[in-house]
């Protein structure tokens, strides 16, 4: 069985890729998917630690993260549809009317 830190390392890499996706992409939907990728990276770390410590709490956490993520996706995508309807674009750089 692979050591714990292999999994954690993989999780870090996944997280960084998701983070870069958020920072570099301008398509709101891709940004959203990158966020999901970051969630997954965190989930992977949870599961690995859960196995390491033989403790169910980590798995439970993943379960809740999933449900909350599902809720977040539903609202987020609805927002995106609304924004697209008014602005005809999902480029996040166009959404800057709250600028101070």
């Amino acid at each position, binding site marked *: 069985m692979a050591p714990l830190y292999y999994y954690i390392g993989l999780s870090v890499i996944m997280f960084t890729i998701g*983070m870069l996706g*958020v*920072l570099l992409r*301008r398509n709101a939907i891709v940004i959203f998917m990158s966020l999901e990728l970051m969630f997954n990276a965190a989930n992977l770390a949870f599961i690995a630690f859960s196995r390491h410590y033989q403790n169910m709490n980590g798995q439970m956490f993943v379960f809740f993260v999933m449900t909350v993520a599902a809720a977040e996706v539903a609202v987020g995508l609805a927002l995106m549809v609304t924004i697209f309807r008014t602005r005809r674009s999902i480029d*996040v*750089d166009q*959404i*800057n*009317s*709250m*600028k*101070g």
Partner: protein
Amino acid sequence: MLFQETIANPAFGLVPWVVFFPLVGLVLNLLFGRRLGEVFTGTVAVLASGAAFVVSVLLALGLAAHPEPVVVPFLEWLRIGDFAANWDFRVDTLSVTMMLVVSGVGTLIHIYATRYMHADVRHNGDPGRYRRFFVYFSLFILAMMILVTANNYLMLFVGWEGVGLCSYLLIGFWFEKGEDGIGNAKAAKKAFVVNRIGDFGLLVAMFTMFWAFGSLDFDAVLAAAPAAAPGVLLVITLLMLLGVTGKSAQIPLFVWLPDAMAGPTPVSALIHAATMVTAGVYLVARSAPMFNAVPAAQAAVMWVGAITALFAATIALGQNDIKKVLAYSTISQLGFMVAAVGMGAYVAGMFHLITHAFFKALLFLSAGSVILGMEHGEEAGHAKGHGHAEHADQGDHGGLDPQDMRNMGGLRRRMPVTFLVYLVGSLALAGVAPLSGFFSKDEILVAASRSNFIVLGVLLLAAFFTAFYVGRQLMLVFFGRERTPAAERAVESPALITVPLIVLALLAAVGGALNLPGSHLLETWLEHTLGAGEPAEFILPLAGVALGVALLGLFLGWLIYRRPFQREPLERTGPLFRAFNRKWWVDEAYHALVVRPYNGISRFLAGDFDMGFIDTVANGAGVLVRRLSGWWGVLQNGFVRTYALMVVVGVVSIMLYLALR
């Protein structure tokens, strides 16, 4: 001496209701008054006040059986270290006497007001304010009850401020009316500001009390007072005297009361004649042991009262507004009471307070009835002239002032009931035996004859002027020929107005029976609270002189004003009448000595200091912040990804910290 049981007599447990009945009425009117209309509003307010009166009567009956003072604990209010101020109710003969006066006279005035305000709100063109009036009225009764039932100076101060607030609200009830549309608002403001000066005195007196005695409870303070240093007591009592001059309209702070007549007439009767302005007298009587310990302070109180009595009586002689005369008369009579309590004749002061509440409330309410009659007569004239006339502003009906006595005359035939009750009240005020005013004033004079003959002379002179202006007013208003068409068309007021007047007239007539020479009913009653004093004996020569002075004044009034006249007959006295008429130029003097320098300082502070100095500092700070925020504002560029980048900067910093730890 004091026994502090929760409930010695079941009636005493009811004492919080003297405060809470008005509160219930107030809340009901606030919530439902607008929807349910005037009848409901008026009934609720009258019932609230009446219920408080019933409770007061029950308390009085309870006290008649057990006259010792009782403290009914209600609520722990403040506790700071060793200091405690609780909301307790004090039931003793003094407070119950005040409760009876406040709620009894208050209820009669409430009944009167239900009808009077009905006409007044229509005359002034805003019927929606009917409810507001009774809400304020209930609030006033509530605050006054807190004042008189308090068991410590702090709670008394709560009531003291509460009645001051109600006074302000009610003087400015028609705040958009009056001279230049701000006259009433200015009058209310004046009352408020002048009262604050007095309140400042009371407040500092309380601070000193706390510093000297560590408590504000009546029992604790008054028990410790005789043993305290005389200097401290002198400071406390003189500061209290400042409070008294403010609330009870004595020299030098009396100037607000005449202006307070801008309020509707029931307000003048209830607040500015019968109850609130007597709070100062009550305060001195309540603090009797403290005043007894410092004769100097007593003398000061006595002189302030006596001089005020004479001073205000002379001014009353020179006024033409029916309510202004009564206002100065109130100041003068309050001077009598203050002089009495200053002489240590607390019972005489309280006695005069009670009888004065009867006859002065009666006079004000009758004056209101006269004003209503005049307004009615005037409107009738207009209706005859050019259809239906609209009256938007008060005091602007074809130039005729319905309160000016020079526009009246001959109302005796038009308003017979009002005339009769007014006559009773006037004679009581003038001190004609056997009406109530005669006996109460006589007691004060007896006390004066014991303490100081100059004061006695001053008071007798004041009594003479009192009778004189009373005679003048009676002649001007009710006798002779009608001087305006409005007076010719004046009509008698309806029963809701005249019935309270008749009740008050009966009280004013027989009120003297409370403390008839020989029976000393009030004396024995108040003895339980104020301690035994010398009962005022009936000195026949003195009473004869007083009666003679009163009759002489009345006769002089009749003699001068019995014939029709073009010019004011008293103007023949020249500068003297001008001084009376212009109120001894007190307002002008205050304006020159206090208001103008104050405005000058204010202008300097507002202009050079505030606009010049402070604003430079404040604006400089603003400019600085704006410049700084300009630099940082670059970060707020509106791009979500930049914000995300900043979040990541934070995350990476935390990771770096963890890595390099």
